[in-house]
């Protein structure tokens, strides 16, 4: 089967994310491309968590409603996801906790508690038992699971393997997932891919205060710190985070920060400082459902206009919204390069889906290299804010003998001394505008708008961020093209117009209630005919979007 969906569900604390990831690794070993959607409420123990792992021959970025195998670690999982079962689906369950009632599906119960007891294993090892059983059910050979467990569950390996083998031997084969004739790819969350991209482009410091769904980047950076020589700091709050990043920038250290909406609210005064003081800083802004605390662990695209307009005063900014892990890696590295090239704040605007879901990543598709910023040539007297054709002033960092480097968040002259002189105020404002124009020109060399599928169809789907995957796949079913706007500032209006010009109707697909991209496009005279909006905190499944497109086109 070249398109296979598995759901594993249980309570928080069951290790559902890790178990889902292991299933991803198993399929990835066989050459499949992976997408995993992880759904969890905001609590530490209890509640219902599930991972939906889809494996396919081609790269994918969305899930389907129905599943081929349902793994229920508790009764609730079975009840909540019963409707996902097809006539031929298979259910694997913990026979000590789950009492299956349906006759519709095949299934097998594993006496997990019994096996753990007999093997003297601890409760969390039930996942090994279940995964062993799962491999048998989907026809994955024992050596594959052995290899995956050795690599990804190295703790108490022997006992885990024993327990897995018991699960494997107790289960029955339901289907046979054949090995595909293609290379196994790494599987990563979008946040991890952001980390890889930033490091590739020369990041030296990461500063963040934990906030879902950005926290896993802080964890990734903290773990990576020794190998990459990174300074990773978790300070008192997001205000300090944003200001520390600028202290690093002043001293010549490439830094990034990460947060979600509420934390970003606290960063906005510092963002405006970065605009005025011309400090390069990269911000991962991982959206979740607002306003306020909202639905902390659920996805949304509600902060686009906030990010485009945050901070008092007028200053240029770079905003890119990657649609999967490969783009997250590439555009994060690019964001770091742009921040330093133009001395502006640069955003990586993700959402919970891109940040925390898992994708197959082909690094050759994400190649990005560190680019050198414009450095001072050491001639004459240094002026931090020297006027230039592009508005970009050469950088120097302390200490430089005989030179003084003055950064300033007040209105200032070229040297960096405070002034409220009206002429200089205009010159400096124009300098900032020039940088924005230079950045827009630079973006001419980048694929800021991506087009997929057939052109000349009845309609085109217009999307951004995590809806890329689902739009491409749903679009294909209807023979529609998908236009993904990756760079949202500077807005590539001409390219978006060009990409949409042959479409009779434009359908915006967004994860918010007010169609924020459609509104932005409208500002540039781009008309959107229909809007398909989802704002329940859950990503579109392929089935959701297919049915919505059907309704809109009817």
């Amino acid at each position, binding site marked *: 089967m070249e398109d296979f969906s598995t759901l594993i569900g249980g309570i928080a604390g069951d290790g559902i994310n890790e178990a889902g990831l292991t299933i991803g*690794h198993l399929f990835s*070993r066989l050459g499949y491309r992976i997408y995993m959607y992880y759904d969890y409420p905001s609590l530490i123990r209890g509640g219902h968590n599930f991972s939906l792992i889809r494996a396919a021959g081609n790269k994918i970025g969305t899930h389907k409603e129905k599943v081929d195998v349902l793994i229920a670690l508790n009764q609730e999982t079975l009840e909540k996801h019963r409707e996902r079962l097809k006539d031929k689906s298979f259910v694997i369950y913990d026979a000590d906790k789950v009492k299956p009632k349906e006759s519709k599906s095949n299934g097998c119960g594993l006496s997990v508690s019994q096996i753990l007891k007999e093997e003297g294993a601890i409760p969390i090892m039930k996942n090994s038992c279940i995964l062993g059983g799962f491999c048998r059910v989907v026809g994955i050979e024992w050596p594959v699971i052995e290899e995956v467990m050795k*690599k990804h569950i190295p703790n108490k390996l022997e006992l885990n393997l024993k327990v897995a083998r018991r699960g494997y031997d107790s289960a029955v084969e339901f289907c046979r997932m054949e090995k595909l004739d293609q290379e*196994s*790819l*790494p*599987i*990563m969350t979008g946040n991890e891919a952001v980390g*890889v991209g930033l490091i*590739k482009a020369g990041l*030296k*410091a990461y*500063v963040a205060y934990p906030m879902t769904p950005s926290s896993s980047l802080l964890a990734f950076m903290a773990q*990576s710190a*020794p*190998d*990459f*020589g990174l*300074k990773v*700091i978790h*300070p*008192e*709050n997001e*205000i*300090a*985070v944003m*200001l*520390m*990043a*600028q*202290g*690093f920038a*002043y*001293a*010549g*250290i490439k830094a990034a920060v990460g947060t979600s909406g509420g934390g970003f609210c606290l960063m906005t*005064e*510092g963002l405006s*400082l970065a605009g005025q*003081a011309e400090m390069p800083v990269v911000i991962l802004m991982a959206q979740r459902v607002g306003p306020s605390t909202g639905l902390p662990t659920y996805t949304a695209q509600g902060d686009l206009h906030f990010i485009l307009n945050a901070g008092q005063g007028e200053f240029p900014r770079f905003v890119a919204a990657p649609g999967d892990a490969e783009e997250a890696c590439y555009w994060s590295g690019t964001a770091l390069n742009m921040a330093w090239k133009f001395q502006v704040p640069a955003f990586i605007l993700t959402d919970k889906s891109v940040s925390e879901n898992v994708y197959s*990543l082909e*690094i050759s598709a994400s190649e990005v*290299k*560190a680019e050198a910023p414009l450095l001072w040539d050491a001639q004459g007297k240094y002026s931090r804010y020297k006027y230039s054709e592009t508005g970009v002033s050469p950088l120097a*960092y*302390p*200490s*430089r*003998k005989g030179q*003084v*480097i*003055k*950064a*300033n*968040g*007040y209105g*200032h002259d070229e040297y*960096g*001394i*405070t002034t409220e002189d009206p002429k200089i105020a205009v010159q400096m404002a124009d300098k900032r505008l020039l940088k924005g124009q230079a950045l827009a020109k630079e973006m001419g060399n980048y694929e800021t708008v991506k087009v997929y599928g057939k052109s000349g169809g009845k309609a085109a789907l217009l999307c951004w961020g995590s809806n890329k995957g689902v739009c491409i796949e749903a679009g294909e079913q209807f023979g529609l093209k998908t236009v993904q706007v990756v760079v949202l500032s500077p807005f590539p209006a001409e390219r978006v117009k060009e990409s949409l010009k042959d479409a009779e109707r434009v359908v915006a697909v967004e994860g918010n209630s007010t169609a924020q991209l459609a509104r932005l496009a409208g500002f540039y005279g781009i008309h959107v005919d229909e809007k398909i909006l989802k704002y329940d905190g859950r990503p579109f499944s392929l089935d959701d979007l297919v049915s919505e497109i059907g309704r809109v086109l009817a």
Partner: protein
Amino acid sequence: MNPKDLGTYAKNTWCPGCGNFSILNAMKAVLAELDEEGFPIEKVVLVSGIGCHGKIVDYLNVNSFYSIHGRTLPVAMAIKLANPELKVICFSGDGDCLAEGLDHLIFAAKRNLDITLVLHDNRVYGLTTGQYTPTSPQGFKGKSTPLGSAELPMNPPELMLVSGASYIARGYSHGIEFLQKLFKEAILHKGFSFMEVLQVCMTYNNLYESYNKRVYEVKDNDTSSFDEAMRIIRSWSYDGPEAPIPLGKFYQVDAPRFDQIFPGFELKDLGEADRETEIRKVLEKSI
């Protein structure tokens, strides 16, 4: 180096008689002296917040980052972490770091990073033309509290002592040589040094007369004793007209610093090839 060479072309806009002039002149003298003694001026970075105090960075021809209200310390800490060779000196006001940026002040003391904070404590908001601050006495009649402020004042050195600052001193803008001595000590101290200056605002809170009657220099105190420092610090609570006001060094200890403790904090400069090798390892782990 002549301290006069440390000036800039910026026009000084402090009111005549402002206590900030003493801080400026004392700092010029100390920085020039340190330069003569082998600590080059280009290795000094000044960071200021917003308020009358903040203008000091415009008046000193030294590397600087003119930050925003209350946000000197996070910038300063990052500069120090980025380049440990630099001497980083923050200037902050009582509204700046005791109200708007209090969280950063407590954390700076807690981290005990090797930077210096000079608190220009004039006990009034000057630039916004006269409101009470965290160190104004109870009953202070300002533009936001015409009937008198209801709050008791904060005792900043006390707060710093319990938060982990490893150097705490108080100076007074009347008495520049004494200020110089303390500034130099504070800057040379290894760890977070908190240097409060009772800086008189001539326009909105002229306390010269009151201070002149009450200040005295503490001598022969055991600066390594937390309890003795606490006793001296608490002997004046920023309230009431009578208590004598101690000046001088209250506390100085050698305590572990954030940058010494933080594991793996040495900045490793990987070349592109090494970086790519390490990235391949990360990717390999994810297969």
